Each structure stands twice: as structure tokens, then as C-alpha cells.
């Protein structure tokens, strides 16, 4: 059969972020794929070498607007591993609360977008409606809807007032009903099950080979969660479960995010109950020479940071690895054999975050070699048409 090469990008038509996929298709079926990244590098690793340990968390909060708690969190843990400092109890609980609020708003954002991609615009509106109070809550607690900048080496920068704790609890109680409703709606919907079930499946063995993390791994039957495996912040003091599902398809990836949102609500509620007044920050006098590794569970998977210090105020080497960097290449395994209308859905299902992934050097791609590119509306229409077809049959 005749093979056609379809370039998608270098600007993602649906997610509106810069990357390039070259899909080779036979008829409607994808037979090969090539991923090209790095259209928008910001040189953060290089920049960090010229900043002090106190300044770095502020820059790291800007790696990504969505995981702006996880990156500083992983950095602080790497430094704490390096200098062996113990964070006070209250600091740990505050870290957990902020990280979980971040996870809830990130997962709700994804659920909304996924709904939009397959033509369920009601899901989109509902999910984003319930995400809004979480962002408002974050603004109240930290002063910003995103870019929290609340972590520093040794603890937290700002305390959450005791008077805010009942407010957090109330917001969580208000959120629980809608999230339960959304989860039930997704699980019970026959169209969704047919539309998303079985597409883009990543087997357990393949997931291991590609070293994937986060919801992408957990939906492929791997019980990988840094919060559980190497408990940081206050996660070891709280009763919660790692959610994982066996199938690895897009449907599992949607369900797992909703289940995790439920767990996050549970964690925040317990944190609010257990947290006691006290210090939030331990003093760090100096950074000894040596190496430190810290990792944290961002909404999209494990964020991995490595710090190498020579005893001065500045790190001599600093490495950031965002979750999308390991999840995105696995696209090659999950998309081959799928229909073209599903291809972008499979990418969207792993919730790639390009702003996290691209930080190493400043590059600009030379324009040229123009080919015909599928635009947003065509891709969305393909996806919506398929949903419509399934809906008619069910």
C-alpha cells in the first residue's frame, strides 16, 4: 500500500505548543512516527549555574506554569539530600498541601482538554469550572494562581495562616461531589468507553523499556509513584493509595487522572487535619561540596533533579529532567497501528508539557522545507467525526 508522510507541527495544532511529529501512514493507519522536539529552548540549566541556591527556586517555578511547585520541590530535595538538612514538620505538610492542589488543577485541566479533543465540550466546561475554585484557593494561600515560589532549600518561604485551613477544607468538600460526578460520568459513558478504550495501548513491558513515569506508567500496570516509593513531604504520614490500572489505553489514562484527583482531595483533607503550628523552615548555613539527587511526583510524572556543588554559592552542574521527556518518546510504541484520527489523542493522553521539557539551550529553527501541514480544525474535526460515528452506533 502507498505510504504517505504527514507532518504535524512544528506547532502542535491541538495543544498549541511547539513540537513536530512526522507520521507515516498507510491509508488511515499510522505505521511509523518520528518526534522532533526543541523548538523553544530556554537554557535554564545553563542559567542556573550563574544563580545562587536561594535564587534558583524562583527560576525553576517558571519552567512550567502548571508544575510550578514540583520543579522547585525536586530542587529543594536535591539540595537537602546534598547538605543533609531536615525540614520541620509543618514545612513538610505545607509542601504536601501545595503539591496536591497543583495536582488537582493540572488533572482537571487535562480532563477538560481531553473532553474538548473528542468533542465532549460539556466535560470541558464542567472540568474547568471546578478547576477555578482551586486556583482561587491557591491565590489566597500563596498570592498567585500559578508560579507559587513557596519552596526554598530547608522548607517553605511563607506560612499558610491557621485561619485559612478551614477554607481549604471547605473547598475540598465542595470539590469532591463534582469530581465524583465526573468520574462516574466517564466510567459509565458507553461512547467514551468505545471511543477511548483500546486505543494507544502501551503494554507493561514497553512501558518498562521506555522508562515512562507518572500516570502514563500507572495506567500500564506499573506501580510507580515517588510519593509512595520514596515518601517526601508529608506523604508517609497520610493514609492514601497509589492508583494503577492494567490496560494502558487512553481510557485508562483518563480514568487514572480522575481517581488521582480523588486521592489528592483525600490527602489535602488529612494534611489540614494533622498540621500543627511550628517552624516552617530550617536554616541552611552552607552547601557542602558533593552531589545531590531529588525527585518529586509532578502531575505528569516524576521530575528528576541533580545538583553538583563545589562548596560555593553556585552549583557547578544542575540537571532537570521533566516527566514529558521520558513519556513522549513512548509515543512511538503507543501510536503505531492506530488511526490518524486517534494519533493526536494518544499524545494528548500522556499530557505532554513542552515548556517543562525544553530548557537546555537557545535555538531557533530555520524556516524552510515547507510541506503541507494539517491544521487544528482538521485534526479536531477528524476526532469529533469519529466520536459522532460511535455515538450514532451505540
Amino acid at each position, binding site marked *: 500500500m502507498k505510504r504517505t508522510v504527514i507532518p504535524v507541527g512544528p506547532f502542535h495544532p491541538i495543544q498549541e505548543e511547539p513540537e513536530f511529529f512526522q507520521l507515516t501512514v498507510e491509508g488511515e493507519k499510522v505505521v511509523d512516527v518520528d518526534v522532533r522536539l526543541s523548538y523553544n529552548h530556554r537554557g535554564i540549566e545553563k542559567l542556573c549555574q550563574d544563580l545562587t541556591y536561594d535564587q534558583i527556586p524562583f527560576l525553576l517555578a517558571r519552567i512550567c506554569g502548571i508544575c510550578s511547585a514540583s520543579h522547585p520541590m525536586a530542587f529543594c530535595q536535591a539540595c537537602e539530600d546534598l547538605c543533609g538538612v531536615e525540614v520541620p514538620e509543618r514545612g513538610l505538610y505545607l509542601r504536601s498541601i501545595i503539591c496536591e492542589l497543583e495536582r488537582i488543577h493540572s488533572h482537571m485541566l487535562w480532563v477538560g482538554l481531553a473532553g474538548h479533543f473528542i468533542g465532549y465540550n460539556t466535560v470541558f466546561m464542567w472540568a474547568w469550572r471546578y478547576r477555578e475554585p482551586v486556583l482561587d484557593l491557591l491565590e489566597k494561600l500563596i498570592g498567585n494562581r500559578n508560579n507559587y515560589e513557596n519552596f526554598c532549600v530547608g522548607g517553605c518561604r511563607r506560612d499558610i495562616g491557621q485561619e485559612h485551613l478551614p477554607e481549604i477544607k471547605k473547598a475540598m468538600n465542595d470539590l469532591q461531589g463534582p469530581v465524583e460526578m465526573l468520574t462516574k460520568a466517564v466510567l459509565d459513558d458507553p461512547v467514551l468507553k468505545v471511543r477511548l478504550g483500546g486505543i494507544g495501548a502501551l503494554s507493561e513491558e514497553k512501558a518498562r523499556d521506555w522508562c515512562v513515569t507518572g500516570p502514563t506508567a500507572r495506567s500500564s500496570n506499573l506501580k510507580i509513584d515517588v510519593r509512595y516509593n520514596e515518601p517526601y513531604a508529608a506523604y508517609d504520614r497520610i493514609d492514601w493509595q497509589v492508583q494503577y490500572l492494567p490496560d494502558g489505553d487512553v481510557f485508562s489514562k483518563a480514568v487514572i487522572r480522575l481517581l488521582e484527583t480523588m486521592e489528592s482531595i483525600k490527602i489535602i483533607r488529612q494534611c489540614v487535619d494533622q498540621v500543627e503550628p511550628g517552624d516552617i523552615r530550617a536554616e541552611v548555613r552552607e552547601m557542602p561540596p558533593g552531589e545531590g539527587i531529588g525527585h518529586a511526583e509532578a502531575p505528569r510524572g*516524576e521530575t528528576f533533579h*541533580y545538583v553538583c556543588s563545589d562548596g560555593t554559592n553556585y552549583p557547578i552542574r544542575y*540537571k532537570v529532567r521533566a516527566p514529558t*521527556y521520558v513519556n513522549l518518546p513512548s509515543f512511538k510504541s503507543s501510536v503505531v497501528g492506530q488511526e490518524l484520527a486517534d494519533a493526536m489523542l494518544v499524545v494528548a493522553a500522556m499530557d505532554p508539557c513542552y515548556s517543562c521539557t525544553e530548557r537546555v539551550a537557545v535555538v*531557533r529553527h*530555520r524556516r524552510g522545507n515547507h510541506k503541507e501541514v494539517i491544521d487544528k480544525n482538521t485534526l479536531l474535526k477528524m476526532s469529533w467525526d469519529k466520536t459522532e460515528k460511535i455515538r450514532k452506533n451505540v
Partner: protein
Amino acid sequence: MLFDEIMEQLELRVGSTVELIFPRNRRRIYVDVPPERSLNVNRIVFEILGGRLATATGKDTPDRIEVLYHYCFDASGIVVTVRTWAKKPDCKLDSVATIFPGALFIEREIQDILGVCFVNHPDPRRLILADDWPEGVYPLRRDFSARKARKETPEFLREYTREVTSP
């Protein structure tokens, strides 16, 4: 695998071929391997011990470029770091991506920014540098200087290091 088990397995399986097995604390283990035996040690850590490659870090030092493969052992939350190096000036190292595809991207990245040549890498194209970036200029090396690079390849880097003049 628990800490003692990992230490025991490392001693048993790679103890004779590595230079050093150093537990920094109960959660971080560092293994130093000479480059000619690094492929085998990586294979054992990934396939037999069951580590998950979190990432690899390239680090420039005066006479060599160190490459650190960080493996996570998820059941116990331990990170084993396999440290190997590529001697300057040719900077050659066996590619771990021949064993499993999870190392494909990160090795391409290290090749771009530090100039380590991964031998037998299945897909050695550029990953993060632009297609028109000059050969042999590695932005994360300690001796990289935009000014110097600009002099050597003026027509290209002048664009990137354009001076901002006030109107």
C-alpha cells in the same frame, strides 16, 4: 529490592569490574565504572536488577566528560547512579540506548550539548540543537564562549548574539 539487597547484588554481579561502589546514604548509591565496562554494568543494572533509567547527566570536567546514568529502584525508592566518563578529546562512549530505548533521547541530548560521541547509538541525529548550529560547538562545555564562537562562525552566531542598541 531493599538497600542491603541492592548493595549485595551490586557487589556480587559488578563488584569486580567497577572501581567503586559508594553508598552516600541509605537512599543514594554511586557506582564508578571505567568506560570500557560501562555498557555491561548498565545492562546488569537495567535488566537483572530491574532499575528504571530516570535520566542521565553529562558533566564537563577538565580532562573528561562524566556521564551519570541515574537508575531508580521504585520498590524501595533508592537511586543508583552509574558514573562513567568519556576521555577528551575524542569523547567516545558505548551507547546504552542499544539495550533499551529509554536512553535514546537523553544520549542524543548529551551528544548535542557536551559533544560525547555515543558509539552504536541507533539514532544519532541532533535532538536539541538547531540544524544550522555549527559542528563542534557544544554549549554546555565549560570552555564554551558565545563571543569566541561568534568569531569563528560569524555569519551564524551573529544572529544569536546580536547586540541590543537603544533607538
